């Protein structure tokens, strides 16, 4: 969803603070890297498997967030879990930070090497292993992206439905607990990872559910799999993930409807879910976004809050689902309900949703965009959206809204002039207010994108001191010297 930006700014970025970003690594790291560690790395992953080139390091020190690029001191390219383990042992011996890197498509600065160190680029481990069609599971290495997996599966009738905006590494998606438009029906990564192979900071290889195991459910011991899901590289390097697959729907129907108010759209969403309609996607676009889409694609959608829906099911059953949804929208004052079954018309109906990012950027040519990410209980969504829109107007900011409304999760696409520090500052404050507004409504400061660098303080507000202490305890148990992706998720301990 994000475009890379801001790395030429002199300030620390919209969501980061000056003291969070340390551009020059401490002397110990520099000298260790300079003296002989490189040859140790080369003996593990070969001459081609180690790079200190500036361009390669910069490429591995940034993602698609607003955070400034913090390049590591060296990038290594292991080819198998044995090499990852050997490299981790070397890093551990020399106290070098370890930063795992998948596709670099994160949105919260997760790969910034704030203390320098060694970036483990896992792109050469790119095999789809162990597909079990009858059991609906598959194991993949970190170099496999979600689109690559679905392409691999295309002849089998199976697919992996979690679809964040980017074509992200599946192991990276596990590390950030990613989600997508399909979550309302198919869940997020938390619900769809069965097992992980993880290399810990000391080089030990952990199988969170036991090596090779893939039961659909288990009650065995602590849930280490979901402990690692969302740990953003701070507890270990994920080298394999076993995923839950689903049958490709026999038929798909897409629908669009506009509403007189945000409340009407959200009420319809709640009622559709309550009615048990197995809707696969419900996406909300606010009036500003609809207007942007009309301008961008020369369309004539109604400029008012709208829902974009998609239904998956068997050929026969879809008509009933669509009818039920249509009745509900009409009951709530919705109008212009259109639906389509064939691929071409479905594309056309959903065009506004697909172009949302580009349509937003087109509102202010020359600007960059940044997606906020909060999630609240469904019933609080109308209030938080109304207050957020008022805040946008008062703060004189451009922020069309797209939401996975079936989950209570929405994104303001902040379109901002990267050369205007005053505007950037207003965005920064707005984003903090938005997060706190969500927290005040029993929600979370991040529905999908993770904590990374910029939301560490908000995490502490969200979960409270006891939870943070427990998280710190877990971190200390698995990585006592804080080598795994330092500076992410948890704030530095007060001494």
């Amino acid at each position, binding site marked *: 969803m994000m475009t890379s930006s801001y790395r030429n700014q002199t300030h620390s970025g919209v969501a980061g603070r000056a003291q969070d970003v340390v551009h020059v690594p401490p002397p110990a790291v520099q000298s260790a890297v300079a003296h002989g560690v490189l040859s140790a790395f080369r003996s593990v992953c070969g001459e081609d498997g180690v790079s200190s080139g500036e361009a390669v390091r910069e490429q591995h020190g940034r993602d698609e967030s607003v955070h400034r690029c913090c390049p590591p001191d060296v990038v290594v390219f292991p080819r198998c879990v044995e090499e990852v383990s050997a490299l981790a042992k070397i890093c551990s011996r020399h106290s070098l930070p370890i930063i795992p890197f998948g596709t670099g498509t994160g949105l919260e600065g997760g790969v910034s090497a704030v203390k320098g160190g060694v970036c483990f680029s896992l792109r050469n481990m790119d095999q789809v292993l162990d597909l079990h069609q009858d059991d609906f599971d598959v194991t993949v290495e970190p170099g496999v992206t979600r689109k690559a997996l679905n392409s691999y599966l295309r*002849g*089998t*009738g*199976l697919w992996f439905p979690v679809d964040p905006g980017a074509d992200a590494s599946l192991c990276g998606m596990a590390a950030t607990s990613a989600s997508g438009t399909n979550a309302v029906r198919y869940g997020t990564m938390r619900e769809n990872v069965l097992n992980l192979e993880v290399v810990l900071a000391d080089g030990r290889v952990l199988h969170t559910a036991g090596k090779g195991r893939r039961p659909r459910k288990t009650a065995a011991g602590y849930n280490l799999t979901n402990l690692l899901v969302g740990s953003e590289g701070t507890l270990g390097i994920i080298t394999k993930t076993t995923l839950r697959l689903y049958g*490709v729907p026999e038929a798909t129907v897409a629908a669009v409807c506009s509403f007189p108010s945000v409340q009407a759209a959200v009420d319809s969403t709640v009622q559709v879910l309550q009615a048990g309609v197995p809707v696969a996607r419900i996406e909300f676009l606010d009036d500003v976004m609809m207007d942007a889409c009309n301008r961008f694609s020369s369309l004539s959608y109604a400029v008012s809050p709208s829902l974009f829906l998609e239904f998956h099911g068997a050929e026969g059953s879809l008509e009933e689902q669509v009818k039920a949804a249509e009745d509900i929208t009409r009951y709530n004052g919705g109008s212009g309900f259109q639906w389509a079954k064939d*691929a071409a018309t479905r594309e056309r109906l959903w065009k506004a949703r697909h172009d949302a990012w580009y349509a937003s950027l087109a509102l202010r040519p020359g600007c960059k965009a940044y997606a906020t990410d909060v999630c609240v209980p469904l019933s609080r969504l109308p209030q938080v959206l109304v207050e957020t829109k008022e805040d946008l107007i008062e703060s004189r900011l451009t922020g069309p809204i797209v939401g996975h409304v079936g989950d209570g999760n929405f994104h303001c696409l902040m379109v901002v002039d990267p050369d205007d520090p005053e505007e950037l500052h207003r965005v920064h404050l707005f984003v903090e207010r938005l997060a706190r507004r969500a927290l005040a409504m029993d929600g979370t400061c991040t529905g999908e994108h993770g904590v990374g660098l910029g939301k560490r303080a908000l995490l502490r507000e969200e979960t409270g001191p006891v939870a943070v202490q427990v998280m710190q305890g877990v971190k200390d148990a698995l990585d006592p010297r804080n080598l795994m992706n330092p500076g992410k998720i948890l704030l530095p301990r007060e001494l």
Partner: protein
Amino acid sequence: MSGRVLVGVKRVIDYAVKIRVKPDNSGVVTDGVKHSMNPFCEIAVEEAVKLKEKKFIKEVVAVSCGPQQAQETIRTALAMGADRGIHVEVTGKDYDTLGPLQVSKIFAALAKKEDAQLLILGKQAIDDDCNQTGQMTAALLDWPQGTFASEVSLEGDKIKVVREIDGGLETIKINTPAVLTADLRLNTPRYATLPNIMKKKIAQVKPADLGVDITSRLEVLRVDEPPQRLAGVTVETVDDLVAKLKESGTI
């Protein structure tokens, strides 16, 4: 008109796999390597299923020639919406030497046997890149051919085909029965779905049953990888660059 369409589908090494040549240079490594339906065959199946959905034709029959594993490819076609499958059994050495001429003879025989109105193939397979089977089959049947199709529409008992050619697009109108070969932009193939696979049948037949002799007249002598790319040389100054270019005789 029978309303029946035959679609040829070939099992090939998956497009995403890195191909390796066998150490004895007799061919490429296929053991343990992921195979799937040739991408142009997927487009052919999609077009046939679309024609059936629009009610221009009544039945889609997927055909593949090869060993037991060819049935997987036929099953993918069934999962995309084909009605039934025909597996033409060709195994071992016969399969290794099976090429467009023999396959054309098989398809021609089947087209007659099944009273097909239309035969749709992918324009070429991504393993041999021959781009011959469709054209040869049409010649054997003495049927018109619409090759490199990027758009197909049925108009009564004729077919309008927009073909992708070097100069741009050529539109032709041909009689049925006919042979079409699918080009990249004809459509976007749908994903296979599980429920579609359950109730459909795959019939087995041998080339001899169709009166076809599959002896090959070609012998592969040797298979080599393309030459390795040589490392480049960096130079410090423009003068060095010019000197090197002169040295190599480039300028």
